[in-house]
C-alpha cells in the first residue's frame, strides 16, 4: 500500500469565527501503482486533501501514512517526504523562476542533496519524460516557451525529485484539446511504464473516465464514493445527485432512458452509447 489515510479531518481557522470544516473523517488506501482520479465540485475539499499528502497542511485529526512513513511525525525530515510525494499545483508554470529550463528542473533534486551527476541525469530523464527534447529546450529561458511547454517543464521539475507518488491538480486546464490529450498520455506513461502512482485532481469527467483506474468523489468535505471508475461512472443517479456532470454520451443515455427508450445508462463512452442506440434501433426493425 502506498498511501493510508485514516479519519482525516481538517478545520481551517479552528476556534475563530472563520472556522470552516474543509474535510471530515476521510479514510482511504491507495495502491503503489494506482492511477486515481479525484473529482468533486469547487469547495469539496480536494485541494485541502492533497496538501496533506506531503505535509503542506497538518491534519486537525487523523493520520496520513505514505510508504510506511507517518507524514506528520516530527522525526521525519520534510526532505524525506518530498522525495516520496511530488505535488504539481494548478497553473504550475507560474512557479518557474530560473534562467534556463535546465536550471529550473534541477532546483528540486539539488535541494534533496543529490550529487551533480545524478542531478544531471534526473533533469535529462524528466524533461524527456514530459515529452520535450532535452537538447532543444535545456538552455532556453522558461519564459520563451509556449503555455503548454511551460506546464511540461514545471511537471518535469517535480518528476526530477523521483517521487513514488505524483499528485497533479488540474494539470491540463487551459490547454487546447490536443495539448490536453498529449499531456495526459505522458502522465499515463509515467504510471504504466515507470510505476509511479498518480493522483489526478480534475473537473473534466471525460478525462477521468478515460485515464483513471479508480476514482474518488468528494462533496462538502466528505469522501462520498471510492471505487473502480467503471463502477462509479455506471451509477447515473449518484453522479447526478452529487452535482457532477457526466460525460455527454452518458447524459444522452440517461435522457433516452427517461423517455422510455430501453438503453443501458451505465455505459459512459462514445462507442458504448452508439452501440446501445444501434442495438435498440435494430430491435425496432425486427418488430
Amino acid at each position, binding site marked *: 500500500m502506498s498511501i493510508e489515510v485514516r479519519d482525516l479531518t481538517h478545520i481551517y481557522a479552528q476556534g475563530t469565527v472563520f472556522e470552516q470544516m474543509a474535510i471530515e473523517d476521510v479514510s482511504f488506501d491507495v495502491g503503489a501503482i494506482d492511477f486515481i482520479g479525484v473529482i468533486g465540485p469547487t469547495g469539496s475539499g480536494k485541494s485541502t486533501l492533497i496538501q496533506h499528502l506531503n505535509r503542506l497542511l497538518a491534519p486537525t485529526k487523523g493520520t496520513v501514512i505514505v510508504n510506511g512513513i507517518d507524514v506528520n511525525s516530527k522525526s521525519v525530515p520534510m526532505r524525506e517526504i518530498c522525495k516520496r510525494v511530488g505535488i504539481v499545483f494548478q497553473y504550475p508554470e507560474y512557479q518557474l523562476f530560473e534562467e534556463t529550463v535546465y536550471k529550473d528542473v534541477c532546483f528540486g533534486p539539488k535541494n534533496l542533496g543529490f550529487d551533480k551527476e545524478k542531478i544531471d541525469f534526473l533533469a535529462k530523464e524528466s524533461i524527456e519524460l514530459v515529452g520535450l527534447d532535452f537538447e532543444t529546450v535545456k538552455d532556453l529561458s522558461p519564459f520563451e516557451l509556449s503555455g503548454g511547454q511551460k506546464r511540461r517543464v514545471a511537471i518535469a521539475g517535480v518528476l526530477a525529485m523521483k517521487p513514488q507518488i505524483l499528485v497533479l491538480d488540474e494539470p491540463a486546464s487551459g490547454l487546447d484539446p490536443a495539448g490536453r490529450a498529449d499531456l495526459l498520455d505522458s502522465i499515463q506513461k509515467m504510471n504504466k511504464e515507470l510505476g509511479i502512482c498518480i493522483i489526478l485532481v480534475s473537473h473534466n469527467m471525460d478525462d477521468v473516465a478515460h485515464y483513471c483506474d479508480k476514482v474518488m468523489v468528494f462533496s462538502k468535505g466528505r469522501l462520498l464514493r471510492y471505487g473502480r471508475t467503471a463502477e462509479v461512472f455506471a451509477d447515473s443517479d449518484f453522479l447526478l445527485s452529487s452535482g457532477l456532470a457526466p460525460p455527454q454520451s452518458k447524459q444522452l443515455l440517461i435522457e433516452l432512458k427517461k423517455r422510455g427508450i430501453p438503453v443501458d445508462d451505465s455505459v459512459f463512452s462514445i462507442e458504448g452509447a452508439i452501440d446501445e442506440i*444501434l442495438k435498440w*434501433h435494430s430491435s425496432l426493425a425486427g418488430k
Partner: protein
Amino acid sequence: MMIQVRGVRYKYDSDSDSYAVDGIDLDLAQGEFVGIVGHNGSGKSTFAKMLNGLILPTEGSVNVLGMDTKDEKSLIQIRRNIGMVFQNPDNQIVATIVEEDVAFGVENLGIEQTKIRGIVDSALTSVGMYSSRLKKPHQLSGGQKQRVAIAGVLAMNPRCIILDESTAMLDPNGRAEVITTALRLNKEEGVTVVLITHYMEELVNADRIIAMENGKIAFDLPPAKAFSDSGRLRSLRLGVPEIVQIASILRENGIPIRENTLDVEGLVEDICQLK
C-alpha cells in the same frame, strides 16, 4: 457595425518576422454571439485584446462603433462599450464586498451616487447574483466569481462582452452558469458576445464559430457546419463535442439525425422520433 476589423496584423517583437495576428478581416454585427477557438498560441487572445484597444494593431485597423482603436481620444468610449472578462476569477475582483466590486467601474465613470445603486443592483440581478451582493469574494465559488466579474462589466452598460477563456478554470457547474448567463444577456438584452474557449460544446448555440490558426482565420462558420468536418477540426488541434461525434456515426449507420443537431436535447428528440 459593432466591430469592423480590416487587414489587421500584430507582432509582439518589432525585430521579429513572426506575427501573432497575421492578416484578419472581420465584421461583427450588433447582437451576434460569436465563438473564437484555436489551439494555444494560435493568436486568439492577442486578437481579442485588439478588439477593445488593449493591444493596437501593427498594421490595419480595428473600428468599434465607427471609432478607430488607434485614436486615443476614443479609447475610453471604446472600452465602455466592450467589456472583457478574463480567465482567472481571483485576478479580477478588486473589492472586499461583491456589490462594491461591481460598483468599482461605474464609480470611476463619475455617475452620481444615487444612480449607482440602481445600476449595480440590476447588473447583479442580471447575472443571478443579487442575493449574494453582501458576500465577500472568497465566499463565492469560481462560477459565482466569474458572474460577479461579468456584472462589473455589465454595470458599464457595454454593447459587447468578450469572455477570454472565462470558463477555463471552472468546474462543470460553474462553466454552465457562465455560459447560461452569457446566452441570456445575448438573447434577451441584445448584448454582443465574443466567447473564446477550448470547450467546443459551449459554442453549440453560437451564431458563428471562428477558428484561428497561426494568427489567421482558418474558418468562420455556423456551428453545424463548423462541427461537420471533424478531420479539419482535428488538424486545427480542436475537439469535436461528443454529441456531434455520436450523431455523425448514427447518421453513417442510416439513422436519420438532423444536420443541425448539436446538443443532448436535440439528439434525444431526434432519436425519440424513431419510436
